[in-house]
């Protein structure tokens, strides 16, 4: 353990969590009138905190910190800014944090989205509680990504539910009670099954003296230790923990992650949660929270149970394919803008799952890049939906016509976001989709699988274009001279989006272009991580002992 400053625990996890709790306690003790008055200053405090976090992660991105390895050349299983503190000694629980090229893009994305979210929802009501909750959400999300201890990982994994539950419940739409409870119960149920899997895995480790193990149980929760241990046990065609056990544990762990992702049979919480959630909640939910599922898959089951992953490859691919197609087809039938965007998220998460299922370095890099690109694009989609809600009080496709004439800013943002999401070349989403296609082709050819697997993605490309273009045409174009503002405005003048929203939109659009034109900025480290993973872990295990 180095004596260097713990750049993760202090500014990235501790700061947002503690400052939000302090702010909330402070607000709880002040009168109702004072709360209204304090709103703007609390918003400013939250913005400053989030900017500080963004500054820290950006410094990390440019490699400007002490004692860090370059993100692109890291070995598998090594971490930057690694710190460990004993938490519960008898069980081997540590507060241990660290980042590698898998988690760093997600952490940067979270810190990037926090100020954007604050800006995009600048005028949210009950500001004095809303902005601390957003900060708390950010801290909990980063905690998930940086945790190197299973216990800590699970704690933060569940902690993300609480601020999101309140965000949906307090600032949500009409059916917010139903949606927030459904959201909480769905993900909680999956998580406890995952927890049982984690504990079973914990006790199945051989009782040898592993590092960071509990004084009392003799087992460890430490993720890098577990991975390196499973790596040795998986080698030479052996199955870590035994064949049937590995399969069962893989399924239990994946269940938790698939519900969070979400993949098709478990996705129904997502549209409800998204439609009811406030804009800021949706942005963080789609931008980062869904990626927790994919991140978890890479971090735990894929690294520890590669044999089982190979065994379930068909099912993963099938699930991804079904999510991709089903999400897109359902989009066609939506009349609510936000619901459509929510289902398109399901479809995009299908892409991630397919990328994982190919078990190709390119596919995994595609999945990682998709996580990142979708993390920038989907908040923009939801910001646009939120702007519709906020300014037009309606998100019904077809309730309005020719909005481009009244609200050019909103129309432009919508068009840009929609195009980015359907995968227009030179925008970030395209890179990921293209990579996924190549990887899938490569995989099908290499493994002699039927070419008909390609039908799904090809079909979806057309559908995606169809629903996005159709919704755009019906909302912002059409109507000619007699444009039709939504009835919900009751004849008031049609507003355009506020300045703070414009700033947020422009920044998100700029980064979408940046990562579309120069994907290597982020892709290099993802590639580095994937290649290291394959070279040092997967290939020796899967091909070595055969």
């Amino acid at each position, binding site marked *: 353990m180095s004596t260097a400053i713990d750049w993760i625990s202090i500014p990235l996890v501790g700061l947002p969590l503690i400052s939000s709790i302090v702010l909330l306690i402070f607000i709880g003790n002040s009168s109702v009138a004072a709360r209204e008055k304090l709103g703007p200053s609390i918003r400013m405090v939250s913005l400053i905190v989030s900017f500080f976090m963004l500054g820290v992660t950006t410094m990390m991105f440019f490699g400007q910190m002490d004692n860090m390895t370059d993100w692109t050349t890291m070995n598998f299983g090594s971490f930057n800014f690694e710190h460990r503190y004993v938490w519960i000694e008898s069980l081997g629980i540590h507060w241990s944090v660290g980042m590698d090229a898998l988690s760093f893009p997600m952490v940067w994305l979270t810190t990037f989205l926090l100020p954007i979210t604050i800006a995009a929802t600048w005028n949210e009501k009950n500001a004095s509680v809303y902005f601390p909750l957003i900060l708390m959400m950010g801290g909990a999300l980063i905690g998930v990504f940086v945790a190197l201890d299973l216990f800590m990982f699970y704690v933060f994994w569940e*902690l993300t539910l609480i601020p999101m539950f309140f965000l949906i419940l*307090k600032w949500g739409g009409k059916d917010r009670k139903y949606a927030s*409870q459904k959201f*909480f*119960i769905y993900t909680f149920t999956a998580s406890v099954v995952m927890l049982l899997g984690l*504990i*079973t895995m914990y*006790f199945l480790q051989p009782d040898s003296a592993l590092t960071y193990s509990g004084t009392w149980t003799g087992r460890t929760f430490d993720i890098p230790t577990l991975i390196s241990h499973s790596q040795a046990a998986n080698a030479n065609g052996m199955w870590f923990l035994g064949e*049937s*056990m590995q399969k069962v544990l893989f399924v239990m762990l994946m269940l938790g992650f698939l519900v969070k992702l979400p993949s098709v049979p478990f996705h129904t919480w997502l549209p409800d949660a998204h439609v009811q959630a406030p804009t800021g909640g949706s942005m963080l939910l789609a931008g980062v929270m869904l990626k927790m599922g994919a991140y978890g898959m890479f971090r735990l089951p894929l690294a520890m149970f590669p044999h089982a992953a190979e065994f379930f490859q068909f099912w993963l691919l099938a699930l991804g394919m079904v999510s991709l197609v089903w999400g897109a087809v359902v989009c066609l039938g939506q009349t609510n803008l936000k619901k459509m965007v929510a289902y398109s998220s399901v479809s995009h998460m299908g892409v991630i799952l397919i990328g994982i299922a190919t078990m190709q370095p390119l596919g995994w890099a595609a999945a990682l890049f998709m996580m990142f690109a979708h993390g920038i694009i989907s908040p923009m989609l939801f910001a646009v939906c939120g702007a519709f809600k906020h300014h037009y009080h309606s998100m019904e496709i077809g309730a309005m016509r020719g909005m481009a004439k009244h609200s050019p800013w909103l129309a432009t943002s919508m068009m840009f976001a929609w195009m980015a999401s359907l995968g227009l070349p030179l925008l970030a989403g395209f890179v990921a989709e293209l990579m996924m296609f190549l990887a899938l082709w490569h995989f099908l050819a290499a493994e002699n699988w039927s070419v008909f697997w390609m039908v799904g993605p090809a079909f979806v490309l057309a559908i995606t274009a169809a629903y996005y273009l159709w919704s755009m045409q019906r909302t912002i174009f059409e109507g000619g001279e007699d444009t039709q503002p939504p009835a919900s405005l009751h004849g008031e003048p049609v507003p355009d989006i506020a300045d703070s929203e414009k700033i947020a939109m422009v920044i998100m659009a700029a980064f979408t272009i940046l990562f579309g034109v120069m994907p290597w900025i982020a892709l290099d480290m993802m590639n580095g991580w994937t290649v290291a993973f394959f070279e040092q872990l997967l290939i020796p295990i899967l091909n070595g002992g055969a």
Partner: protein
Amino acid sequence: MESVIEPFGEGFVTALAPEFVLVIGLFTLMIVPNLGDAKFRIPLTQIRIPWFFGGKRGTLDSDPRLPGIFASIFFAIAFLLAIVSFLGGMNQTTVASGENVLLKVDEFSRLFELIFYGALALASIASINRLPATFRADRSASGLYNNRRQVDFYILLMTCGLGMSVVALAQDMFLLFIGLELASFSTYVLVAFLKETKEGSEAGMKYFIVGSVASGVGLYGLSLLYLWAGSLQFTDLAAQFDTSGMEALPLAGLGMLLVGFGFKVSAAPFHFAAPDAYAGAPGPVAGVLATASKAMGIVGLLRILLVVASPENSDDGTTVWLVALAVMSVVTMTWGNLAALGSTNPKRMLAYSSVAHAGYMMAAITAIGALNWEPAHVMDSKSASLAIVTALMFHLVVLVCFKLGAFLVLSLLESENGGHTLESLGGLVKREPFLAVAMFIFMMSLAGVPPLAGFLSKLLVIMGIVKAALLEASASGNISFSEIHWVWYLALIMVINSAVSVFYYLRVGLVMFFHEPEAGREGPLPKGNSVRLAIAACVISTVYFGIGAGQLIALCESAANALVGAW
């Protein structure tokens, strides 16, 4: 350090200091409010000797607030003394009269005493506001009524605490039963204490009838055991069980004792009185029933199942009660959760959630029964049962923090005649944010959401079960899924159940934060600093034991070691 002493022999008082504090408290409560200026006249003379009992009472000792303050102080002293006995290593003391071992002071019994005294101290502190006593101000009927019954209430709390500590200390089935009855009879009256309300008398009646039937059945089982073994000493019973444990007589006796203790922990199907009792009892008393009284039942179960009918007694290394207890635990947790889903009275809801928690704990005890005590595995089995007992103790300790805390919040609502419908919690966050946040923390902790104490306790219980289930299999390295012992599925049922339970816990939060207050309840809540103090203590400990539980786990481990090590 271990020592054996005679009853009332040398070192007896120091060894049982917390209990003696309670006894002193009991007498103080009886004597002090009766002190007056009475004089005793020696017959045939005019000499009057001051006698002090009765007569005109002084201003200080006739203050009706006195009993509550006294009881809280005595419970707090007993609690502190129990903590002090842990410092610098426990002095394990056995109280034996000749051959017969009566009481044993060790980490196990002391930790349970901490649970009992902690819960009772919090309850008595909260009761100062729940059963308000007013000095010379309130002349209303209910005010006078409450003033008059102060002493009774706190005396009953004291006897309850005394009975519970006897249960924890007892090394003899009969002594254990006496303690159990002392505590039970006190709780019967405490439940019915608000006799002027309809719910109160109904609750008392139901609880008393079902409870006394359960006690009667338990006592009958005890008599069967005595008939069979000729002694009710734990050690004698255990030795006898080793040789002839599979006979019909001891098994019938064991089953009947299970009924008696099953009622105390409110396990299905003996839980029917619990929801009514909790709903009718004053909030702090319901909290005691759900925490301390349940812990007492768990002591009984642990003693009878693990110490007496311990696993190594049967041929195949598992135990006879294994399947029965497993079925009971599954039924209990599922029934509790499903019934809680449908209840709209928050106290009934908490009662059913307490039933569900009983199911979790019984699942943990079942897992101990599944351990293989073959000589080859005995060390592993010991460490696994140690883990499970530790988890149970931890669960019971932290249960005092959040379950009792939840009842205390409700007791504050009872003071304004609310707390019987979920809607009376409506808009609590607007009326008093502290209480709403506290209640939400308690609910989340009950549901097992990290990083609160309830999560850690559930995690420890699941870990214990899983460890026990995997023990035999993992000894051989790589194993197949079908080789895992079936108690693993108890853990699965438990996690699914705890996912179901989230629904009703969340609903409380929903009502508090997002419903408008009921008509007539918009104003601030009744005053009461001591109950808020108790709630604050509960909140702080719920959060603290969730984040920094290391010391408490070590404490529980030493306590579990005292029980398991004695096998």
